[in-house]
């Protein structure tokens, strides 16, 4: 039966770790903008060389 106590405590700790990860991410502003990052990732970085002058 004592195994149960260890398991329960461990599982609570793991869950609490995830909760604090969530709180941390909210605090850091990860949930402030849920739209722009999805667009940003699709945009290419500009090529700094003058190679692609006419791109259309």
């Amino acid at each position: 039966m004592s195994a149960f106590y260890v398991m329960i405590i461990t599982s609570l700790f793991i869950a609490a770790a995830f909760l604090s990860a969530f709180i941390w991410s909210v605090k850091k502003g990860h949930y402030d903008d849920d739209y722009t990052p999805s667009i940003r990732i699709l945009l290419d970085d500009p090529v700094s060389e003058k190679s692609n002058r006419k791109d259309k």
Partner: protein
Amino acid sequence: MNFLKEERKQETAAKHICYHCGEECREEIILADEHAFCCKGCFNVYDILKESDLCAYYSVEGATGISPDKAYFNGKYDYLDLPEVSEKILEFTNHPLSRVNWHIPKMHCSSCIWLLEQLYKFNPAVRSSVVNFPEKKVRITFDTEKIRLSELAALISQIGYEPYISLNDLGGQQIKNWNRTRLYKIGIAGFCFGNIMMLSFPEYFHLGNSGSDQNLRVTFGFLNLVLSLPVLLYCAGDFFRSAWSALKGKYLNIDAPIVLALLSIFGLSLYQILSETGPGYLDSLTGAVFFMLTGRFFQDKTYDSISFDRDYKSYFPVGVSVLKGGTEVRTPITELAPGDTVLVRNAELIPADAVLLSPEAWIDYSFVSGEAEPVSRKKGEMIYAGGKQTGTAIQLEVLRKVSQSYLTQLWNNDAFSREKENQNNTLSARINRSFSVIVLIIATVTFLIWYFVKNDPETAFRAFTTCLLVACPCGLLFSSTFTNGNILSLFGINRCYPKNADAVERLSHIDTVVFDKTGTITRSEEADVQFVGKELSDDELIIIKTVASQSSHPLSRMIVGNLAHIQISRRSLENYSEVRGAGIQVLRGKQEIRLGSAEWVGASSENNADYSSSKVYVAIDQVVLGFFAIRIQYRSNLPEAISALRKYGFQTFLLSGDKPADPHFLSKVFGHEASLLFNRKPDEKLEFIKNLQNSHHRNVLMIGDGLNDAGALRQSNVGMAVSDDTADFSPSCDMIMEGRQLSRLPAFIKLAKAGQKIIKASFAISLIYNILGLFFAIGGKLSPVFAAILMPVSLITIVAFTTAASKLAARRIFRD
């Protein structure tokens, strides 16, 4: 730069699309690098982008650039460098780096994100720029030693994204922590709910009843108790606060029965766990809080880029040009004092009541008073704040401070201090109140019967609390929050943005619709220009456009705008003269050209009774060629929308600040002439609405756009602002609708009504679950497993039903 300005006349049929902004080229066409541009501004942006090697901008899908602010001039943002201003605008300073978070209303597509995040390419002093698209904001970190704030503002204005800096910003920064707090609460409630449910699992299946498991059960019970504490004390805090403030105001709001249920469940669980008589119902308690919080999060979804509570302060500019000893100084508007001389350029706002020092001014008051056409003012005349100068720059002497001017007096009316929302009267609150009373009666009767008739005090207490538990009004709350959440997002998809769920509910009770005219049912910037008379040759058209473009008179500008395909002649004009109230006269070589009124050109003015259009006559060498009939354009589909409203039994009125126009057309649309009211001042509009409400007991929907409607919008049951660009300034209101959607107004009202029906239907569904639960609770037989199953099942049914029903209703309504 090898661009050549096309002097050759363009074929009328061929339309040129601007490479930068994607609009059809009107007025002029600039050809460069095989691309066409509609104006100098668009070309300049292209040029800047090309120099910084950022032409990839145009290859981003759906990219359409923005034509930069034509009213921009050097020094426009100088006031930002004043320490007292910059201190309020900078979000964060850590020498030498500073950060601003600017609202960019013109941001509209993914290429905007791309370009604004490449700002460092234009100026290396910009360290980083990060866009928040839903809020239309860009957060720029920059080096204050290498670039000044005013230069930064000028840089982003140059590429077309003017920052929106208003007087409200100077009042102090507001940090939105609210959204984050709600997420914390949902996260914590979810965590506790999940763990309590896991620890309660053995109880559901009656496991662990043997003696050796007793210790484990006790431990689980205490763990559950500990886990439920943050939910009750922190996550449910808002419910307690709202219920308490309602109780202090001596009424019961929707949160009061919830709080009662939460407390009684917690009390019962506490008793069961401490006395080791049972496992309690903490899983139901935390689950209910968790789902209620998610429901509210869903319902209170905000439109980040739209502001509903703007007052006149955000309409005024932050900085104005003051002339001091002949030099122009940009000064914050709050420091404007009587006696100052201000310089107001084309399309700029008159900041305070003032006297005109320049010979003449054309003031566009359409936003303030509703008059469609700009009015002329002569030297020495008084000009009220809020108008916009059209034409050349003028000088004015300030008479009164901004806070004391005529325009701001409207805001002193009682209507602005009155709160429109009365939570006490929403449908769910009304149902809830009678519901709570009934549940309390049932619970008490049950308690009394068990206690006195059956002499079983323990079952009596359990039955009493479980009655409250299963009849917990959570189900009712879900019905309204999820339906409202769905309806709100459906409104948003169709470009109508209600301030909150309450506004939608009030919209469903509307029986009278009052329209403003200028800007609401007409489009101020577009006019229908038609030439009546002899067919004009291309050469004559060129002459007319060239002459008209010399004048700043609004009618001339409309003619110029209408002759988009014509190129302006480069030949010089001589002896230009403009006579106020009459017209203009020009010599071109030997030709004498006159544009203006009938008397001015020597034409006979036949039917003066025709109000519906303004006429500009054209004469070349004393020969009258005909006239341009310029008529205000009404939004298309408007007559259909209004006749549809009348068909459904709504009373419709037109309430305009303008002089009477188009009585035949409008009385046909609005039914009869009695419902057309013209020449109404802002306070008269407010009184009219008040009269409809008080004497005729009407629920009034006011639809307007300008500051002149602000009072009426506040006074009405639902105030709806119409705006062609939702990022533009609009007066404080309950809803903002895109101009194009105006014809869908009947559909929106129908959807709001459908929403109310859906709420009632899902109330009925949750009532079935409640009665089922009560049946067991009265008998004192409610087991934890039954409570644990009943709650999620009823929830899922309600959420599924409301979502499906509102989607279905919207599809049916918007299909036709």
